[in-house]
């Protein structure tokens, strides 16, 4: 009897929790929903009071204008280049993580602490000197200048090290006895074993570089190197009152990330569990 009662109570509790979650989720999603529906409205409809929830005369005009009035094709190309090249950084982090996890060498601990210490340095402190250094190297206003400073990340190295430390040493020793050289071991043995951590880091790298804004803005002086973020902020300034066009630009940036995220959601959550965040 008592058991049955508490079962009903649990049931009700679960329904209440679900309702709260759904309502909160809808509230959180309003900006996304509003962005997407507004991006299909013609310019006249967007300033209408009261506003319409769904476009009465849906149009693709705003999206077409992104490419005809603005240079979004170019911005997209630059963003894709940045995303692809930042995967090189993923490799650098993995290599460093591997060395710290599986080798004994002089200065290992000191270097690792030094790397971790860089996590504490706020971006605002290094922003100006990094700009001055790139300026001295003649790399301002170049793609290299945009990508280079972000190629190594302490947190990434740390996560790779944590994961790779769990690989049994015997596996590596056996390969060495078979005469495999160190690079062969890393690329053919370690990298495949580390797929899960590569997946997590890969997604985070993709999201980070796709969204990169401040550094491209500082380094790129001419439009040729603008990324989607920089282009979108330009659009916000130039078409301040054309909200339909702004929403289309925003949706163009956000939707690909949401799709990628929907596919790989599982890995992101697992990644945090993997890092031992308990």
């Amino acid at each position, binding site marked *: 009897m008592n058991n049955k009662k508490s079962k009903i109570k649990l049931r009700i509790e679960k329904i209440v929790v679900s309702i709260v979650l759904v309502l909160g989720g809808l509230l959180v999603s309003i900006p996304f929903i509003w962005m997407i529906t507004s991006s299909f409205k013609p310019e006249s409809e967007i300033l209408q009071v009261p506003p319409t929830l769904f476009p009465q005369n849906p149009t693709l005009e705003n999206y077409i204008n992104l490419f005809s009035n603005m240079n979004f094709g170019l911005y997209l190309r630059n963003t894709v280049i940045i995303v692809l090249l930042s995967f090189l950084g993923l490799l650098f982090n993995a290599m460093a993580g591997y060395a710290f996890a599986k080798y004994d060498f002089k200065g290992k601990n000191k270097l690792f602490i030094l790397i971790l210490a860089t996590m504490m340095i706020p971006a605002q*402190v290094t922003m100006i000197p990094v700009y001055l250094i790139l300026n001295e190297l003649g790399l301002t206003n170049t793609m290299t200048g945009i990508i*280079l400073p972000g190629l190594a990340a302490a947190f990434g190295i740390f996560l790779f090290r944590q994961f790779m430390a769990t690989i049994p040493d015997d596996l590596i020793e056996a390969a060495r006895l078979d005469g495999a050289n160190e690079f062969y071991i890393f690329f053919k043995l370690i990298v495949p074993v580390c797929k899960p951590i590569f997946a997590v880091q890969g997604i985070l790298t993709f999201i980070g570089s796709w969204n990169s804004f401040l550094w491209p803005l500082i380094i790129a002086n001419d439009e040729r190197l603008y990324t989607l973020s920089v282009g979108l*902020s330009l659009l916000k300034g130039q078409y301040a009152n054309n909200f339909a066009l702004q929403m289309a630009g925003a949706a163009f940036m956000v939707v690909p990330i949401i799709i990628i995220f929907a596919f790989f959601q599982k890995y992101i959550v697992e990644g945090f569990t993997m890092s031992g965040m308990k």
Partner: protein
Amino acid sequence: MGTVKNLMKNRHPYIFIAPAIIILTVFSIIPIVVALFISFTDLNLKGLADWSNISFIGLENYASLLSDEVFHRSIFNTFFYVIFGVPLVIFFSLSIALLLNYGSSLLFKIFRGVYYMPSITNIIAVAVVWGYLYNTEYGLINYLLSLVHVDKIPWLGEPTIAKISLIILAVWKGIGINMIIFLAALQGIPKMYYEAAEIDGANRFQRLFYITIPLLRFAIFFVTVTTLIGWLQFFEEPFIMTKGGPLDGTISMSLFIYKNGFQFSEFGYAAAGSFVLFIFIIIVTLLQFKLRKSDTDY
């Protein structure tokens, strides 16, 4: 000779770490030294063109900061953001994580994604969309308020309201990542603790306050430290939404540094400002660790 031979034999780890170490050294470690050095100079555009125009001015930049009204304003605003923003982020991300941990059906998985979405969304896109929502004349928020007969609110047009508007936006964006950290921690708590408590007759709130929260201590600590550091560097929201205005009402320390560095090209002055911010961050972080030390661990 022997050491060279040794180094050749043990060269592999060094080759593996070389790219990352070189990049971090050039773009993270050397810059700290450079920043400290230029904070004692009057480096600006003229100095950038010709190094002979740079002169060493001692603590003058720091002295000017002390009497700079805008800098004072930026410190005040930064603390305003931190004091309201950080507790809100922690409260919401923990509450949502607790709710999400309640079930494992598809519904819960989908909504985990929904709550995480804002944190992976591009900040410019966020600013563009919220700028429209906040618009005084055509914005959705003022329209919804007009339905319940609330007058138009200048969401970004009045210094204090604008600060609050930016906090709402940043909390919305900041929940996701912290929620995931809490969720991962919650899933690491062994079920038997709850079963034992239930047998002892502990109710839901007792279980929350005597089991869950103490066991989440490390996650809460981690989230607090990272969120605090993040909010002390509050930058993109005011930079894009309000450019620090109206009347410097939303300018943060980071934005002050950026403006002086990259808009007025006063690199020396901006570097001095960035060190003041750095010192604030170090103090706050050390304080956190100190408070944690006095805490017993489980």
